[in-house]
């Protein structure tokens, strides 16, 4: 499917409103956390092959926004449309197309990296047999964990546990990646490999939304800054 999309995307990369083509549209989205309005009337759209980097200081609402886009949080006003459908109604369609990696890795400390990945695959990639270890081992090799495939995760470092979560990127065929601070606790070499993987993902005509405080060199990324944090705090008081 991704090969099909990549040819499509190169032809129509500037046209965002064809409903067959995957697209993410935010229509004056506002979200608040507690009593604070974090994101106010945000409108933007993302077409095949595009990525956006959400920037902003701590507490500016990056994670809140990403959780809304992933379909985890319902606390927002405005509309988010995936392929033309409101994600409040088309939750299953969004879920099938989206890979979300948040602050929490979703890695069980008592299980091995291999078992963790198998569990995730059975939930998120139904076309892949979770018991076929080959593709899982391959993904773990990509993130440099092949030697630890059968070591319980509580014996691994924070960065290694993070890498287990990121190994999902090498199994995923999802059209939209939503990555919240994916490079946290990852070393320089690891970051370079991940950037390469994300660039590959975009080149195949897919989309990515990322927050990070690190410098990032990937082509096709625009950035959006949620920088009004102080203003809004002042307005709320």
């Amino acid at each position: 499917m991704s090969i099909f999309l990549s040819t499509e995307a190169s032809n129509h990369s500037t046209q965002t409103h064809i409903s067959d083509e995957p697209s993410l549209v935010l229509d004056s989205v506002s979200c608040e956390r507690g009593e604070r309005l974090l994101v106010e009337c945000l409108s933007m759209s993302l077409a095949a092959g595009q990525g956006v980097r959400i920037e902003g200081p701590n507490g500016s609402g990056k994670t809140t926004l990403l959780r809304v886009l992933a379909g985890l949080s319902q606390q927002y006003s405005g509309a988010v449309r995936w392929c033309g459908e409101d994600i409040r109604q088309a939750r299953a369609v969004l879920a099938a197309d989206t890979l979300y990696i948040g602050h929490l890795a979703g890695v069980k400390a008592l299980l091995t990296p291999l078992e963790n990945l198998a569990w995730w695959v059975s939930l998120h990639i139904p076309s892949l047999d979770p018991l076929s270890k080959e593709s899982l081992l391959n993904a773990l090799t990509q993130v440099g964990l092949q030697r630890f495939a059968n070591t319980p995760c509580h014996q691994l470092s924070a960065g290694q546990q993070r890498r287990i979560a990121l190994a999902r990127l090498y199994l995923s065929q999802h059209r939209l990646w939503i990555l919240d601070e994916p490079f946290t606790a990852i070393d320089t070499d690891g970051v370079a490999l991940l950037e390469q993987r994300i660039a590959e993902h975009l080149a195949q005509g897919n989309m990515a939304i990322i927050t990070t405080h690190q410098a990032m060199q990937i082509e096709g990324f625009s950035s959006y800054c949620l920088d009004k944090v102080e203003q809004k705090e002042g307005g709320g008081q």
Partner: protein
Amino acid sequence: MNGSKPNTDIGIFAAFNALLLRDLRVYFRSRGTWLNPLVFVLMVITLFTLGIGPDPSALSTHASGIIWVVALLGIMLSLDALFRADFDDGSLEQLLLSPQPLYLAVLAKVLAHWVITGLPIVLASPLYSLMLGIPANAIAFLALGLLLGSGILSFIGAIGASLTVSLRSGGLLIALLTLPLYVPVIIFGSQFVQSAIEGWPLMPTLSMLLGLLIGAIVLAPIAIIGGLRLSQDS
């Protein structure tokens, strides 16, 4: 629209199995989870025998009530852990975002939890039946009643667990939320054991317990899913 959905029909039962096995694996690697409720039940029943005294007739009059209340408390105390670990490490997010039917995922989670908490209590029931002086011919019926009842208790309790998972300490709140819903289980459960002891007809109470179990299996996951989704907004 359907074009963008993956072919989930092959994956549904594979996913159910994977979830069930993964949860069982996690539970068996953390031994306390499945031993604690059982040890709790055995200890409290021992306390009852000490408190009421050694008179077998006094013990056996109240035996069915004691066993049901203690089993209920044992299962309820273990429920706080049902979703907490998954909530804390982010597994719950990944579960909720899965395109697989959440209904089956929740069913697998509660079933796994029942296997490690409810089932040991059922299997150990002959032991504490003897401690409380329940007649030998009623022990099998007590186990049957507990088998059905503990399932109901797990499913109803999981609703409370899903609603309180985002709170720092939900233990007591789970009790307040679920205890009123446990009332029918206690009534029909202890009635069933009493009927077995006294030789009364068993079918009315047995069919009530079966009905409650089926209702809980069918309806509770819907409420649990709602509770888990809410937990992501707080």
